[in-house]
């Protein structure tokens, strides 16, 4: 009796502790999380947690790290092992949760940390086969002694940091989501790079364009989806000679598979128009110093923590400054004493789909080259946060994985047609992208640059280059498949071996130009070359507006300095408006009603700058999108998995073909809509929509930055309080200052080359620290929005005194 009387309270106490010690659905364990000794409040005590002298096992000789006042580490090591070990250690210290998160995404393992909600997303990423390709790349990297040594030194540094963690010290995201970091490996570094391959090369229009072809025939496709735009300013200037004998590309007699009667039913998302980039370099003839200046701003999805991490890495044989990807050794975009380099995405067609004929529903064999060939079948296992396990069967042909076997509504991937195998450059496992960047870090001149680029595979990039030897260059670089004209513009025939990729363009024949007469090189994701280039790279690239505007400004540039290039990075001029408004405004004026007059007046008086506070920019951008829908959505409805013609073709139609049949809405059988009707109707609809969503037209409500709503979200979008919304900046998707709602310049850099020592400027929309409570978490965002750049401190020696100094840390070997 006494026993029962006194036993209930220990049981209640134990039950309470148990209850508060485990997560409740998506709520973290309350006991751990709210204990001020262990939980999130401990994360506010870690800012300066590196003391002036630390001892680490794994370091061979003392390493000096100088932090400047922007919390950028300048690492000075006595050898390369220590250098990359320290890089891994420091990046992990500031960004561990983020770098591991990326690898969970590309390996399709998010369900393990966030649960079932991520299943379709994971399943899609597994089916893309990125983790399998990454494993093969790791095996290849093991054979490259130098790269492998750097990868393992970096991993050791990350793991040294992980080994110092306990629950109290875990980054707060681990505490909220309730899991712990795993050991870091070279595979995870490669998985991180896989993310970039997917972001930059992981989209396809093949499927939707095939539907257009099935519905409207080749004549319409050739008219509306041409292989080269009506207005372009290609990356390699027209007239650049091709000094090589091109490889033969065999064109098959039949270039299309039998088209299906029914439209292919999988919806395919458009490649994100916000994912692009700008880079350029001007030669000494255009600069005040007589030496080149280089600029780069890669446009990616904007996120917190930021995708980039600034650092200086110095050891015998290398002294480089720039931005690194968290999880990857070396500097990806940056400069050293002699050279500077940057990248933009090429966007050539490197993802194709093959219609597969399976022998039966077991999918064990498929027809190719007049015989049944065996598939490879993998069972993918997904572990959920709650312990549940699910399996998925993945079928591989020699082309690549069959991304979906059947059409399912909840399939996350909108890129991949059912029953079609994917051939994708991201599965290319030879070469070493990492080695390219490591070699650029050490480059002294143009020849070093060319050598560095030779081993690069994917995602193909426009590598811009400048040196203090007064050379500038740009190379469209990566493994570019050898294709017949229009190969992969539509779905390919998976039974016909002649439809397989025939190899790759030899590196020496990739489009490149050195010191062109015009005195500058540039890229903004537009067409790599004009149609004289002997190979087919793709039928659609980013619209030419950014590239044309950049080239126009660079053409007129003289006596330039870094600030001149900074001003071009922030150029808000709307070239699309310049092109189409003169045709559209007279139509509005002809039919205007009193309520339209104020907005028409604004458009007429607009200086065509997409500034943050412009109301005209809001009206134009909203209207341009609405007009496009009004013209095309009846013939090419998105819900039927069709594709709109390009921005260029639309502008051409609007400005030169007012009698075109495409203006008629085919869904209204008894009326024929005219050009004027579509222009006016879409304009009224835009004003209505703006009024509905943002209130009546005035400077406040319709300010462009509010309507554009550039937001920088945490990688877990549900963590809204870790995000920044409605950044006050200008720009737009076809603007050089390419800020959209979720994408934008993720790093801006300008480097003035110099015989003695370069001067560089840069920043990114975020901060060095990945800790949401840190003052370095988002401290660069406001300056970024205003278009400012920070001077980048590039130290000559480890003992150099710098003005904006925060602290020094000495890392000593631990015996």
């Amino acid at each position, binding site marked *: 009796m006494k026993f029962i009387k006194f036993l209930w309270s220990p049981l209640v106490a134990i039950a309470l502790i148990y209850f508060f010690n485990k997560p409740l659905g998506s709520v973290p364990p309350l006991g751990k999380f709210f204990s001020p000794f262990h939980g999130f409040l401990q994360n506010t005590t870690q800012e300066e947690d590196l003391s002036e002298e630390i001892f680490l096992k794994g370091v061979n000789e003392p390493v000096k790290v100088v932090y400047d006042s922007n919390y950028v580490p300048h690492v000075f090591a006595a050898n390369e092992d220590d250098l990359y070990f320290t890089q891994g250690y420091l990046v992990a210290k500031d960004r561990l949760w983020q770098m591991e998160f990326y690898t969970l995404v590309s390996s399709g393992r998010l369900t393990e940390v966030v649960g079932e909600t991520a299943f379709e997303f994971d399943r899609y990423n597994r089916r893309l086969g990125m983790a399998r390709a990454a494993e093969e790349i790791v095996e290849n990297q093991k054979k490259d002694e130098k790269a492998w040594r750097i990868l393992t030194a970096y991993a050791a540094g990350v793991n040294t940091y992980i080994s110092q963690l306990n629950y109290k010290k875990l980054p707060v995201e681990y505490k909220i989501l309730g899991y712990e970091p795993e050991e870091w490996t070279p595979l995870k570094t490669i998985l991180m790079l896989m993310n970039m391959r997917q972001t930059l090369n992981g989209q396809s229009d093949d499927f939707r364009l095939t539907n257009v072809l099935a519905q409207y025939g080749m004549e319409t496709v050739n008219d509306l989806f041409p292989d080269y735009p009506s207005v372009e300013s290609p990356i390699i200037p027209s007239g650049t000679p091709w000094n090589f004998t091109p490889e033969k590309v065999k064109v098959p007699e039949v270039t299309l598979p039998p088209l299906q009667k029914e439209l292919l039913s999988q919806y395919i998302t458009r490649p994100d128009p916000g994912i692009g980039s700008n880079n350029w370099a001007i030669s000494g003839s255009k600069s005040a110093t007589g030496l080149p200046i280089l600029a780069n701003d890669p446009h990616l999805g904007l996120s917190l923590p930021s995708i980039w991490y600034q650092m200086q890495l110095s050891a015998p044989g290398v002294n480089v400054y720039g931005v690194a990807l968290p999880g990857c050794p070396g500097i990806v975009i940056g400069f050293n004493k002699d050279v500077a380099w940057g990248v933009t995405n090429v966007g050539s067609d490197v993802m194709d789909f093959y219609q597969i004929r399976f022998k039966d529903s077991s999918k064990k064999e498929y027809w190719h080259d007049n015989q049944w060939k065996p598939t490879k079948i993998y069972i993918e296992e997904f572990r959920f946060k709650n312990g549940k396990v699910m399996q998925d069967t993945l079928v591989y042909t020699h082309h690549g994985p069959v991304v979906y076997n059947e059409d399912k509504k909840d399939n996350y991937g909108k890129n991949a047609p059912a029953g079609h195998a994917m051939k994708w450059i991201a599965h290319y496992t030879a070469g070493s992208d990492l080695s390219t960047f490591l070699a650029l870090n050490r480059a002294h001149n143009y020849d070093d640059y060319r050598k560095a680029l030779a081993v690069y595979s994917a995602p193909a990039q426009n590598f811009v280059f400048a040196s203090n030897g007064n050379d500038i260059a740009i190379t469209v670089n990566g493994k570019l498949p050898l294709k017949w004209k229009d190969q992969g513009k539509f779905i390919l025939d998976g039974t016909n071996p002649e439809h397989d990729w025939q190899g790759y363009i030899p590196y020496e024949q990739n489009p490149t130009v050195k010191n062109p007469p015009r005195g500058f090189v540039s890229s903004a994701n537009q067409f790599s070359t004009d149609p004289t280039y002997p190979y087919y790279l793709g039928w659609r690239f980013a619209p030419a507006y950014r590239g044309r505007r950049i080239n126009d400004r660079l053409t007129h540039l003289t006596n330039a300095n870094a600030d001149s290039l900074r001003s071009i990075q922030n150029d808000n001029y709307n070239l699309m408006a310049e092109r189409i408004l003169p045709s559209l405004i007279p139509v509005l004026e002809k039919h205007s009603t009193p309520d339209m007059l104020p907005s028409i007046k604004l458009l007429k008086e607009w200086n065509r700058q997409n500034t943050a506070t412009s109301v005209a920019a809001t009206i134009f951008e909203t209207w341009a999108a609405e007009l496009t829908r009004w013209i095309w959505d009846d013939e090419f409805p998105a819900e039927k998995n069709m594709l709109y013609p390009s921005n260029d073709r639309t502008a051409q139609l609007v400005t030169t073909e007012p009698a075109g049949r495409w203006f008629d809405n085919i869904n209204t059988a008894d009326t024929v809509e005219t050009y004027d009707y579509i222009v006016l109707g879409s304009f009224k609809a835009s004003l209505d929509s703006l009024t509905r969503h943002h209130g009546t037209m005035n400077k406040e409500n319709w300010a462009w930055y509010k309507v554009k709503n550039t937001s920088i979200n945490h990688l877990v979008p549900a963590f809204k*309080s870790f995000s920044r919304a409605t950044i006050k900046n200008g720009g737009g998707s076809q603007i050089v200052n390419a800020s959209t709602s979720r994408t934008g310049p993720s790093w801006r850099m300008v480097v003035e080359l110099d015989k003695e020592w370069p001067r560089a400027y840069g920043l990114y929309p975020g901060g060095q620290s990945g800790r949401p409570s840190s003052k370095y978490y988002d401290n660069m965002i406001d300056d970024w929005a205003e278009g400012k750049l920070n001077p980048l401190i590039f130290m000559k020696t480890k003992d150099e005194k710098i003005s904006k100094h925060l602290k020094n840390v000495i890392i000593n070997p631990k015996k």
Partner: protein
Amino acid sequence: MLYLLIIILGAVGSLVGPWWVLPLVACLICALKAKTTRQAFWVSAAAGVTLWTGYSLILAFSGKENLVDKIGALFTGDNALLAHVPSLALILTIVTLVAGLTTGFAGLAGRHLRMMFS
């Protein structure tokens, strides 16, 4: 005395051990020192709440960094009612509940265990 002892030993234990060291300490001390069950529960709960809210307030107002508002916002989400509650109040409420309940019942358990075996 009991109150101070739990706070001091609980704090020391929490610096080195997991979060449930605090209720464990309350349980042991109450087994040895508490005179009544009522005292065991309420003094333990008060000590636990004092320690956790006190240290939480020190960290929240240390002026180093503010994570309270961001975490508060995560927990209130889009709930309009909770959105008006100051984050610190919300967090201290949870802290009080967790610390009060666990240390209170652990203290009581200590006293009860003592009575069971005496």
